[in-house]
Protein backbone atom coordinates (compact mmCIF):
# COMPACT_ATOMS: atom_id res chain seq x y z
CA UNK A 1 0.00 0.00 0.00
CA UNK A 2 1.48 3.39 -0.90
CA UNK A 3 2.17 5.54 2.16
CA UNK A 4 0.77 9.02 2.41
CA UNK A 5 3.51 11.61 2.18
CA UNK A 6 2.37 13.41 5.33
CA UNK A 7 -0.12 11.37 7.38
CA UNK A 8 0.17 13.52 10.53
CA UNK A 9 -0.24 16.63 8.39
CA UNK A 10 -3.49 15.20 7.02
CA UNK A 11 -4.67 14.25 10.50
CA UNK A 12 -3.84 17.72 11.86
CA UNK A 13 -5.57 19.44 8.94
CA UNK A 14 -8.73 17.37 9.45
CA UNK A 15 -8.73 18.29 13.16
CA UNK A 16 -8.85 22.00 12.34
CA UNK A 17 -11.04 21.86 9.21
CA UNK A 18 -14.31 20.27 10.24
CA UNK A 19 -15.48 20.11 6.63
CA UNK A 20 -12.44 18.06 5.63
CA UNK A 21 -12.70 14.34 4.90
CA UNK A 22 -11.45 11.95 7.57
CA UNK A 23 -7.81 10.93 7.37
CA UNK A 24 -7.52 7.54 5.61
CA UNK A 25 -6.59 4.32 7.36
CA UNK A 26 -8.45 4.83 10.67
CA UNK A 27 -10.32 1.89 12.17
CA UNK A 28 -12.90 1.39 14.90
CA UNK A 29 -14.18 -1.99 16.15
CA UNK A 30 -16.22 -3.71 13.47
CA UNK A 31 -19.50 -2.02 12.68
CA UNK A 32 -18.75 1.10 14.71
CA UNK A 33 -18.50 4.39 12.85
CA UNK A 34 -15.06 5.94 12.65
CA UNK A 35 -16.52 9.47 12.18
CA UNK A 36 -17.74 9.73 15.77
CA UNK A 37 -14.38 8.46 17.02
CA UNK A 38 -12.45 11.05 15.05
CA UNK A 39 -14.83 13.72 16.29
CA UNK A 40 -13.58 13.07 19.84
CA UNK A 41 -10.17 14.39 18.76
CA UNK A 42 -11.78 17.39 17.04
CA UNK A 43 -13.79 18.12 20.19
CA UNK A 44 -10.76 17.66 22.44
CA UNK A 45 -8.80 20.23 20.45
CA UNK A 46 -11.63 22.77 20.52
CA UNK A 47 -12.71 22.15 24.11
CA UNK A 48 -9.17 22.14 25.50
CA UNK A 49 -8.09 25.31 23.76
CA UNK A 50 -11.49 26.92 24.42
CA UNK A 51 -11.04 26.24 28.15
CA UNK A 52 -7.54 27.72 28.00
CA UNK A 53 -9.00 30.90 26.49
CA UNK A 54 -11.84 30.98 29.02
CA UNK A 55 -9.31 30.86 31.82
CA UNK A 56 -7.28 33.68 30.29
CA UNK A 57 -10.20 35.98 29.40
CA UNK A 58 -12.72 35.79 32.27
CA UNK A 59 -13.87 39.40 31.85
CA UNK A 60 -14.41 39.08 28.09
CA UNK A 61 -16.33 35.90 28.82
CA UNK A 62 -18.51 37.61 31.40
CA UNK A 63 -19.20 40.53 29.06
CA UNK A 64 -20.39 38.34 26.19
CA UNK A 65 -21.77 35.33 28.09
CA UNK A 66 -20.72 31.70 27.92
CA UNK A 67 -22.42 30.69 24.64
CA UNK A 68 -21.08 33.70 22.72
CA UNK A 69 -17.60 33.22 24.15
CA UNK A 70 -17.50 29.54 23.24
CA UNK A 71 -18.59 30.26 19.66
CA UNK A 72 -16.03 33.04 19.33
CA UNK A 73 -13.28 30.91 20.91
CA UNK A 74 -14.08 28.10 18.48
CA UNK A 75 -13.68 30.40 15.48
CA UNK A 76 -10.49 31.83 16.94
CA UNK A 77 -8.99 28.40 17.65
CA UNK A 78 -9.70 27.15 14.14
CA UNK A 79 -8.35 30.37 12.58
CA UNK A 80 -5.33 30.76 14.86
CA UNK A 81 -4.33 27.55 16.66
CA UNK A 82 -1.41 27.87 19.12
CA UNK A 83 2.12 28.07 17.73
CA UNK A 84 3.71 26.87 20.95
CA UNK A 85 3.06 24.16 23.54
CA UNK A 86 3.09 26.95 26.15
CA UNK A 87 -0.58 27.78 26.49
CA UNK A 88 0.34 30.38 29.13
CA UNK A 89 0.55 32.83 26.26
CA UNK A 90 -2.21 31.50 24.01
CA UNK A 91 -4.69 34.20 23.05
CA UNK A 92 -2.27 37.07 22.44
CA UNK A 93 -3.98 37.35 19.06
CA UNK A 94 -7.53 37.38 20.43
CA UNK A 95 -7.91 41.21 20.67
CA UNK A 96 -7.08 41.65 16.98
CA UNK A 97 -9.41 38.74 16.16
CA UNK A 98 -12.23 40.38 18.15
CA UNK A 99 -11.79 43.60 16.15
CA UNK A 100 -12.54 41.67 12.98
CA UNK A 101 -15.27 39.49 14.51
CA UNK A 102 -18.55 40.89 13.17
CA UNK A 103 -20.84 39.56 15.95
CA UNK A 104 -18.77 41.52 18.51
CA UNK A 105 -19.03 44.82 16.62
CA UNK A 106 -21.68 46.08 19.08
CA UNK A 107 -19.10 45.98 21.86
CA UNK A 108 -16.36 48.36 20.61
CA UNK A 109 -14.51 48.12 23.95
CA UNK A 110 -14.28 44.32 23.93
CA UNK A 111 -10.94 44.12 22.10
CA UNK A 112 -9.32 46.57 24.53
CA UNK A 113 -10.65 44.62 27.51
CA UNK A 114 -9.05 41.53 25.95
CA UNK A 115 -5.80 43.52 25.61
CA UNK A 116 -6.02 44.34 29.31
CA UNK A 117 -6.51 40.66 30.18
CA UNK A 118 -3.50 39.74 28.03
CA UNK A 119 -1.50 42.38 29.90
CA UNK A 120 -2.70 40.94 33.22
CA UNK A 121 -1.36 37.47 32.33
CA UNK A 122 1.92 38.81 30.96
CA UNK A 123 2.41 40.55 34.31
CA UNK A 124 1.37 37.38 36.17
CA UNK A 125 4.01 35.25 34.43
CA UNK A 126 6.76 37.90 34.23
CA UNK A 127 10.18 37.48 35.80
CA UNK A 128 10.70 38.45 39.44
CA UNK A 129 12.40 41.72 40.41
CA UNK A 130 12.49 43.82 43.55
CA UNK A 131 10.96 47.30 43.14
CA UNK A 132 13.03 50.26 44.33
CA UNK A 133 12.22 51.66 47.77
CA UNK A 134 10.52 55.09 47.45
CA UNK A 135 13.05 56.37 50.02
CA UNK A 136 15.91 55.50 47.67
CA UNK A 137 14.43 57.71 45.01
CA UNK A 138 13.75 60.51 47.47
CA UNK A 139 17.49 60.97 48.11
CA UNK A 140 18.25 61.26 44.38
CA UNK A 141 18.90 64.83 43.23
CA UNK A 142 16.07 65.99 40.94
CA UNK A 143 18.59 66.99 38.24
CA UNK A 144 20.22 63.55 38.41
CA UNK A 145 16.85 61.84 38.19
CA UNK A 146 15.75 63.85 35.17
CA UNK A 147 18.87 62.86 33.22
CA UNK A 148 18.52 59.20 34.25
CA UNK A 149 16.52 56.53 32.51
CA UNK A 150 14.35 53.96 34.27
CA UNK A 151 14.97 50.30 34.96
CA UNK A 152 11.37 49.17 34.92
CA UNK A 153 9.89 46.08 36.53
CA UNK A 154 9.69 43.17 34.04
CA UNK A 155 6.00 42.80 34.84
CA UNK A 156 5.13 46.35 33.75
CA UNK A 157 2.41 46.45 31.07
CA UNK A 158 0.58 49.42 29.55
CA UNK A 159 -2.76 49.41 27.75
CA UNK A 160 -4.30 52.53 26.21
CA UNK A 161 -7.95 52.76 25.27
CA UNK A 162 -10.68 55.26 24.33
CA UNK A 163 -12.97 53.22 26.61
CA UNK A 164 -13.17 52.95 30.44
CA UNK A 165 -11.39 49.58 30.41
CA UNK A 166 -10.18 49.70 34.02
CA UNK A 167 -13.69 50.39 35.33
CA UNK A 168 -15.14 47.65 33.11
CA UNK A 169 -12.46 45.24 34.26
CA UNK A 170 -12.92 46.14 37.94
CA UNK A 171 -16.67 45.68 38.16
CA UNK A 172 -16.60 42.47 36.11
CA UNK A 173 -13.83 41.06 38.27
CA UNK A 174 -14.99 42.16 41.71
CA UNK A 175 -18.75 42.55 41.71
CA UNK A 176 -21.33 39.82 41.81
CA UNK A 177 -23.74 42.15 40.02
CA UNK A 178 -22.00 44.32 37.45
CA UNK A 179 -22.27 48.03 38.30
CA UNK A 180 -23.07 50.44 35.48
CA UNK A 181 -20.13 52.60 34.42
CA UNK A 182 -21.08 56.14 35.49
CA UNK A 183 -18.35 58.05 33.63
CA UNK A 184 -17.76 56.67 30.15
CA UNK A 185 -14.28 58.11 29.65
CA UNK A 186 -11.06 56.94 28.06
CA UNK A 187 -8.82 55.00 30.46
CA UNK A 188 -5.19 53.95 30.17
CA UNK A 189 -4.10 51.08 32.37
CA UNK A 190 -0.91 50.27 34.20
CA UNK A 191 -0.54 46.59 35.10
CA UNK A 192 2.27 45.43 37.39
CA UNK A 193 3.16 42.57 39.69
CA UNK A 194 5.65 43.97 42.17
CA UNK A 195 5.17 41.05 44.59
CA UNK A 196 2.90 38.02 44.56
CA UNK A 197 -0.20 39.72 43.20
CA UNK A 198 -1.02 41.46 39.92
CA UNK A 199 -2.08 45.09 40.39
CA UNK A 200 -4.06 47.18 37.96
CA UNK A 201 -4.36 50.97 37.96
CA UNK A 202 -5.87 53.68 35.84
CA UNK A 203 -3.18 56.13 34.70
CA UNK A 204 -3.44 59.91 35.20
CA UNK A 205 -3.36 62.27 32.16
CA UNK A 206 -0.17 61.84 30.14
CA UNK A 207 0.79 58.82 32.25
CA UNK A 208 0.63 56.37 29.38
CA UNK A 209 2.97 58.45 27.18
CA UNK A 210 5.32 58.99 30.13
CA UNK A 211 5.69 55.29 30.93
CA UNK A 212 5.74 54.27 27.27
CA UNK A 213 8.65 56.65 26.71
CA UNK A 214 10.48 55.28 29.78
CA UNK A 215 9.88 51.74 28.50
CA UNK A 216 11.45 52.79 25.19
CA UNK A 217 14.57 53.94 27.11
CA UNK A 218 13.97 57.71 27.28
CA UNK A 219 15.33 59.75 30.20
CA UNK A 220 12.83 60.97 32.80
CA UNK A 221 13.17 64.48 31.33
CA UNK A 222 12.46 63.33 27.77
CA UNK A 223 9.58 61.11 28.93
CA UNK A 224 8.05 64.01 30.88
CA UNK A 225 8.35 66.22 27.83
CA UNK A 226 6.57 63.64 25.65
CA UNK A 227 3.84 63.27 28.28
CA UNK A 228 3.45 67.06 28.55
CA UNK A 229 3.02 67.23 24.78
CA UNK A 230 0.32 64.55 24.97
CA UNK A 231 -1.55 66.18 27.85
CA UNK A 232 -1.24 69.67 29.34
CA UNK A 233 -2.49 68.20 32.64
CA UNK A 234 0.54 65.92 32.98
CA UNK A 235 1.95 66.12 36.51
CA UNK A 236 5.44 64.63 36.91
CA UNK A 237 5.36 64.35 40.72
CA UNK A 238 2.00 62.60 40.69
CA UNK A 239 3.17 60.18 37.98
CA UNK A 240 6.39 59.36 39.82
CA UNK A 241 4.43 58.68 42.98
CA UNK A 242 2.02 56.46 41.06
CA UNK A 243 4.77 54.41 39.45
CA UNK A 244 6.46 53.90 42.80
CA UNK A 245 3.18 52.75 44.35
CA UNK A 246 2.77 50.28 41.50
CA UNK A 247 6.27 48.94 42.13
CA UNK A 248 7.02 49.69 38.50
CA UNK A 249 10.53 51.02 39.09
CA UNK A 250 13.40 48.67 39.85
CA UNK A 251 16.25 51.18 39.60
CA UNK A 252 17.58 54.14 37.67
CA UNK A 253 20.40 54.29 35.17
CA UNK A 254 22.45 57.50 35.39
CA UNK A 255 22.25 59.69 32.30
CA UNK A 256 25.08 59.62 29.75
CA UNK A 257 26.37 63.08 30.67
CA UNK A 258 26.72 62.12 34.33
CA UNK A 259 28.46 58.88 33.42
CA UNK A 260 30.92 60.91 31.35
CA UNK A 261 31.68 62.87 34.51
CA UNK A 262 30.39 66.24 33.36
Amino acid at each position, binding site marked *: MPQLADPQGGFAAALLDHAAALPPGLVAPSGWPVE*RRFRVYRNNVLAGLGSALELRFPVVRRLVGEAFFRAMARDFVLAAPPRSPLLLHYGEGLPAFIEGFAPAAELPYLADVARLENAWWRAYHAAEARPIEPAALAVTEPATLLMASAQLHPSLQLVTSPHPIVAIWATNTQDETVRPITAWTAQDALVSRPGAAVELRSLPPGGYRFLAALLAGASFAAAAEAAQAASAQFDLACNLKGMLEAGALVGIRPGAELEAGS
Partner: protein
Amino acid sequence: MPSTLPCRAGVGLKPEHYRTILAEAPAVGFFEVHAENYMGAGGPPHRYLSAIRERYPLSLHGVGLSIGADRPLDLAHLARLKALIQRYEPSQFSEHLAWSSHGEVFLNDLLPLPYTDATLARIVDHVGQVQDALGQRLLLENPSTYVRFEESSWSEIDFLAEIARRSGCGLLLDVNNVFVSATNHGFAAEAYVDAFPLGEVGEIHLGGHAPEADEAGAVLLIDAHDRAVADPVWQLYERVPQRTGPLPTLIEWDDQVPAWPELLAEARRADACLAAARPHKQPRETRRAAAG
Protein backbone atom coordinates in the same frame (compact mmCIF):
# COMPACT_ATOMS: atom_id res chain seq x y z
CA MET B 1 20.71 10.53 39.54
CA PRO B 2 17.31 11.77 40.63
CA SER B 3 15.73 9.89 43.49
CA THR B 4 12.61 7.87 42.80
CA LEU B 5 9.13 8.85 43.90
CA PRO B 6 7.81 7.28 47.12
CA CYS B 7 5.58 4.26 46.54
CA ARG B 8 2.51 6.10 47.77
CA ALA B 9 -0.39 8.03 46.35
CA GLY B 10 0.34 11.45 44.90
CA VAL B 11 -1.91 14.16 43.55
CA GLY B 12 -1.85 16.32 40.43
CA LEU B 13 -1.16 19.86 41.68
CA LYS B 14 -3.79 22.45 40.77
CA PRO B 15 -3.62 26.22 41.44
CA GLU B 16 -6.99 25.96 43.24
CA HIS B 17 -5.26 23.97 45.98
CA TYR B 18 -1.94 25.83 46.39
CA ARG B 19 -2.96 27.66 49.56
CA THR B 20 -4.71 24.72 51.21
CA ILE B 21 -1.72 22.48 50.65
CA LEU B 22 0.70 24.99 52.16
CA ALA B 23 -1.64 25.74 55.09
CA GLU B 24 -2.62 22.16 55.93
CA ALA B 25 0.48 20.22 54.86
CA PRO B 26 -1.57 17.11 54.00
CA ALA B 27 0.16 13.73 54.12
CA VAL B 28 0.49 13.09 50.39
CA GLY B 29 3.31 11.04 48.88
CA PHE B 30 4.16 13.50 46.10
CA PHE B 31 2.76 16.11 43.77
CA GLU B 32 2.87 16.03 39.99
CA VAL B 33 2.71 19.06 37.69
CA HIS B 34 2.33 19.55 33.99
CA ALA B 35 5.69 20.95 32.95
CA GLU B 36 4.21 23.42 30.47
CA ASN B 37 2.28 25.24 33.19
CA TYR B 38 5.55 26.23 34.85
CA MET B 39 7.40 27.59 31.85
CA GLY B 40 6.63 31.25 32.50
CA ALA B 41 9.52 33.46 33.63
CA GLY B 42 8.22 34.00 37.17
CA GLY B 43 5.13 34.84 39.15
CA PRO B 44 2.75 32.94 41.44
CA PRO B 45 3.08 29.51 39.75
CA HIS B 46 6.80 29.43 40.52
CA ARG B 47 6.37 30.93 43.97
CA TYR B 48 3.87 28.24 44.96
CA LEU B 49 5.66 25.37 43.28
CA SER B 50 8.93 26.34 44.99
CA ALA B 51 7.22 26.37 48.39
CA ILE B 52 5.49 23.03 47.75
CA ARG B 53 8.66 21.48 46.35
CA GLU B 54 10.44 22.31 49.62
CA ARG B 55 7.94 20.08 51.43
CA TYR B 56 7.12 17.27 48.95
CA PRO B 57 8.71 15.08 46.28
CA LEU B 58 7.80 16.23 42.79
CA SER B 59 7.02 14.42 39.54
CA LEU B 60 7.24 16.38 36.28
CA HIS B 61 4.78 15.35 33.58
CA GLY B 62 5.11 16.76 30.06
CA VAL B 63 2.15 17.26 27.77
CA GLY B 64 3.79 19.24 24.97
CA LEU B 65 6.93 17.46 23.76
CA SER B 66 5.14 15.58 20.96
CA ILE B 67 7.49 12.60 21.13
CA GLY B 68 5.45 10.77 18.48
CA ALA B 69 5.62 13.59 15.93
CA ASP B 70 6.96 12.72 12.49
CA ARG B 71 9.13 15.84 12.71
CA PRO B 72 12.28 16.55 14.69
CA LEU B 73 11.73 17.33 18.37
CA ASP B 74 11.31 20.98 19.38
CA LEU B 75 14.77 21.71 20.79
CA ALA B 76 13.67 24.96 22.40
CA HIS B 77 11.01 23.04 24.30
CA LEU B 78 13.52 20.40 25.32
CA ALA B 79 15.78 23.18 26.64
CA ARG B 80 12.87 24.60 28.66
CA LEU B 81 12.26 21.16 30.17
CA LYS B 82 15.91 20.84 31.07
CA ALA B 83 15.87 24.23 32.80
CA LEU B 84 12.75 23.27 34.74
CA ILE B 85 14.34 19.99 35.83
CA GLN B 86 17.48 21.79 36.97
CA ARG B 87 15.39 24.28 38.93
CA TYR B 88 13.02 21.88 40.69
CA GLU B 89 14.96 18.59 40.70
CA PRO B 90 11.87 16.40 40.24
CA SER B 91 12.14 12.72 41.10
CA GLN B 92 11.16 11.84 37.57
CA PHE B 93 9.94 13.08 34.21
CA SER B 94 7.24 11.43 32.12
CA GLU B 95 5.67 12.03 28.71
CA HIS B 96 3.24 10.30 26.37
CA LEU B 97 3.20 7.81 23.54
CA ALA B 98 1.46 10.37 21.34
CA TRP B 99 1.99 13.43 19.21
CA SER B 100 0.54 16.88 19.88
CA SER B 101 2.26 19.29 17.49
CA HIS B 102 2.47 19.41 13.74
CA GLY B 103 5.18 21.74 12.55
CA GLU B 104 4.63 24.92 14.52
CA VAL B 105 1.00 24.22 15.31
CA PHE B 106 0.32 22.88 18.80
CA LEU B 107 -2.93 20.89 18.81
CA ASN B 108 -3.16 20.49 22.60
CA ASP B 109 -4.33 16.89 22.47
CA LEU B 110 -2.55 13.55 22.79
CA LEU B 111 -3.01 12.22 19.28
CA PRO B 112 -2.79 8.57 18.24
CA LEU B 113 0.00 6.80 16.40
CA PRO B 114 0.13 3.82 14.07
CA TYR B 115 2.18 1.08 15.71
CA THR B 116 4.59 0.28 12.85
CA ASP B 117 8.33 -0.41 12.58
CA ALA B 118 8.84 3.10 11.18
CA THR B 119 6.99 4.79 14.06
CA LEU B 120 8.84 2.61 16.53
CA ALA B 121 12.26 3.61 15.17
CA ARG B 122 11.34 7.28 15.24
CA ILE B 123 10.03 7.17 18.81
CA VAL B 124 13.06 5.24 20.05
CA ASP B 125 15.23 7.98 18.50
CA HIS B 126 13.17 10.73 20.09
CA VAL B 127 13.12 9.07 23.52
CA GLY B 128 16.87 8.61 23.33
CA GLN B 129 17.32 12.24 22.39
CA VAL B 130 15.14 13.37 25.31
CA GLN B 131 16.97 11.15 27.79
CA ASP B 132 20.35 12.39 26.54
CA ALA B 133 19.26 16.02 26.75
CA LEU B 134 17.69 15.71 30.20
CA GLY B 135 20.30 13.34 31.57
CA GLN B 136 17.73 10.99 33.04
CA ARG B 137 15.41 8.12 32.29
CA LEU B 138 12.04 9.04 30.86
CA LEU B 139 8.79 7.28 31.69
CA LEU B 140 6.55 6.87 28.64
CA GLU B 141 2.78 6.71 29.20
CA ASN B 142 0.29 4.44 27.41
CA PRO B 143 -2.39 6.56 25.69
CA SER B 144 -6.18 6.70 25.67
CA THR B 145 -7.27 6.26 22.07
CA TYR B 146 -10.48 6.59 20.11
CA VAL B 147 -9.33 5.26 16.72
CA ARG B 148 -6.72 2.77 15.63
CA PHE B 149 -4.73 2.51 12.41
CA GLU B 150 -5.13 -0.08 9.70
CA GLU B 151 -1.39 -0.13 9.14
CA SER B 152 -0.49 -0.98 12.77
CA SER B 153 1.55 -4.17 12.88
CA TRP B 154 2.37 -4.16 16.61
CA SER B 155 0.14 -4.50 19.64
CA GLU B 156 0.33 -1.46 21.91
CA ILE B 157 1.90 -3.49 24.70
CA ASP B 158 4.60 -5.01 22.50
CA PHE B 159 5.21 -1.59 21.01
CA LEU B 160 5.71 0.02 24.42
CA ALA B 161 7.84 -2.87 25.65
CA GLU B 162 10.06 -2.64 22.58
CA ILE B 163 10.48 1.13 22.98
CA ALA B 164 11.51 0.54 26.59
CA ARG B 165 13.91 -2.25 25.60
CA ARG B 166 15.60 -0.29 22.82
CA SER B 167 15.71 3.14 24.45
CA GLY B 168 16.11 2.15 28.07
CA CYS B 169 13.14 4.28 29.09
CA GLY B 170 10.65 3.25 31.75
CA LEU B 171 6.89 3.17 31.41
CA LEU B 172 4.03 4.97 33.08
CA LEU B 173 0.92 2.81 33.26
CA ASP B 174 -2.25 4.88 33.12
CA VAL B 175 -4.90 2.42 34.29
CA ASN B 176 -7.75 4.73 33.31
CA ASN B 177 -6.30 4.96 29.80
CA VAL B 178 -6.26 1.16 29.63
CA PHE B 179 -9.92 1.03 30.64
CA VAL B 180 -10.90 3.82 28.21
CA SER B 181 -9.07 2.24 25.26
CA ALA B 182 -10.30 -1.26 26.14
CA THR B 183 -13.91 -0.04 26.13
CA ASN B 184 -13.47 2.02 22.98
CA HIS B 185 -11.78 -0.76 21.03
CA GLY B 186 -13.47 -3.76 22.58
CA PHE B 187 -10.57 -5.60 24.21
CA ALA B 188 -10.21 -6.97 27.75
CA ALA B 189 -8.67 -4.39 30.08
CA GLU B 190 -7.58 -7.08 32.59
CA ALA B 191 -5.68 -8.99 29.92
CA TYR B 192 -3.92 -5.78 28.88
CA VAL B 193 -2.82 -5.01 32.43
CA ASP B 194 -1.72 -8.63 32.97
CA ALA B 195 0.35 -8.60 29.79
CA PHE B 196 1.88 -5.16 30.41
CA PRO B 197 5.66 -5.15 31.10
CA LEU B 198 5.09 -4.21 34.73
CA GLY B 199 8.78 -4.50 35.55
CA GLU B 200 9.38 -1.30 33.57
CA VAL B 201 6.59 0.66 35.27
CA GLY B 202 7.78 3.53 37.46
CA GLU B 203 4.44 5.20 38.10
CA ILE B 204 0.71 4.62 37.77
CA HIS B 205 -1.90 7.20 36.78
CA LEU B 206 -5.56 7.10 37.79
CA GLY B 207 -8.15 9.56 36.52
CA GLY B 208 -11.82 9.95 35.73
CA HIS B 209 -13.43 9.39 32.35
CA ALA B 210 -16.65 10.63 30.75
CA PRO B 211 -19.01 8.08 29.19
CA GLU B 212 -20.61 9.01 25.87
CA ALA B 213 -22.18 7.02 23.07
CA ASP B 214 -21.52 6.89 19.35
CA GLU B 215 -24.11 6.74 16.53
CA ALA B 216 -24.31 2.98 16.77
CA GLY B 217 -25.15 3.29 20.47
CA ALA B 218 -21.82 1.84 21.54
CA VAL B 219 -20.34 3.28 24.72
CA LEU B 220 -17.48 5.64 24.00
CA LEU B 221 -15.30 6.70 26.93
CA ILE B 222 -13.53 10.05 26.92
CA ASP B 223 -10.35 10.49 28.96
CA ALA B 224 -11.67 13.69 30.55
CA HIS B 225 -9.96 13.85 33.99
CA ASP B 226 -13.05 15.76 35.12
CA ARG B 227 -14.44 13.49 37.85
CA ALA B 228 -13.62 10.77 40.38
CA VAL B 229 -11.92 7.54 39.31
CA ALA B 230 -14.57 5.01 38.23
CA ASP B 231 -15.05 1.82 40.25
CA PRO B 232 -14.02 -0.57 37.43
CA VAL B 233 -10.80 1.44 37.08
CA TRP B 234 -10.11 1.01 40.81
CA GLN B 235 -10.67 -2.74 40.40
CA LEU B 236 -8.30 -2.82 37.45
CA TYR B 237 -5.75 -0.81 39.42
CA GLU B 238 -5.79 -3.26 42.34
CA ARG B 239 -4.36 -5.94 40.04
CA VAL B 240 -1.14 -3.98 39.57
CA PRO B 241 0.29 -3.54 43.09
CA GLN B 242 -0.85 -7.08 43.88
CA ARG B 243 1.71 -8.19 41.31
CA THR B 244 4.41 -5.54 41.54
CA GLY B 245 4.18 -4.34 45.10
CA PRO B 246 3.42 -0.67 45.78
CA LEU B 247 4.16 1.83 43.02
CA PRO B 248 3.88 5.63 43.02
CA THR B 249 0.26 6.26 42.05
CA LEU B 250 -1.09 9.61 40.86
CA ILE B 251 -4.66 10.90 41.05
CA GLU B 252 -5.24 13.13 37.99
CA TRP B 253 -8.16 15.56 38.16
CA ASP B 254 -7.59 18.41 35.72
CA ASP B 255 -11.05 19.73 34.82
CA GLN B 256 -14.03 20.55 37.10
CA VAL B 257 -11.41 20.43 39.85
CA PRO B 258 -13.03 19.49 43.19
CA ALA B 259 -12.41 20.92 46.64
CA TRP B 260 -9.22 19.58 48.20
CA PRO B 261 -10.85 17.04 50.61
CA GLU B 262 -12.50 15.21 47.70
CA LEU B 263 -9.19 14.92 45.87
CA LEU B 264 -7.43 13.84 49.04
CA ALA B 265 -10.07 11.12 49.54
CA GLU B 266 -9.15 9.69 46.12
CA ALA B 267 -5.50 9.63 47.16
CA ARG B 268 -6.42 7.90 50.43
CA ARG B 269 -8.26 5.22 48.48
CA ALA B 270 -5.17 4.62 46.33
CA ASP B 271 -3.04 4.51 49.48
CA ALA B 272 -5.35 1.84 50.89
CA CYS B 273 -4.86 -0.29 47.75
CA LEU B 274 -1.10 0.18 48.06
CA ALA B 275 -1.16 -0.74 51.75
CA ALA B 276 -3.03 -3.93 50.92
CA ALA B 277 -0.12 -4.85 48.65
CA ARG B 278 2.60 -3.95 51.19
CA PRO B 279 4.02 -7.46 51.80
CA HIS B 280 5.74 -7.23 48.42
CA LYS B 281 7.78 -4.32 49.68
CA GLN B 282 9.41 -6.35 52.47
CA PRO B 283 12.79 -6.88 50.76
CA ARG B 284 13.20 -3.18 50.06
CA GLU B 285 12.29 -2.22 53.63
CA THR B 286 14.79 -4.76 54.91
CA ARG B 287 17.52 -3.37 52.69
CA ARG B 288 16.84 0.13 53.89
CA ALA B 289 16.92 -0.98 57.52
CA ALA B 290 20.22 -2.76 56.96
CA ALA B 291 21.70 0.26 55.23
CA GLY B 292 20.44 2.65 57.92
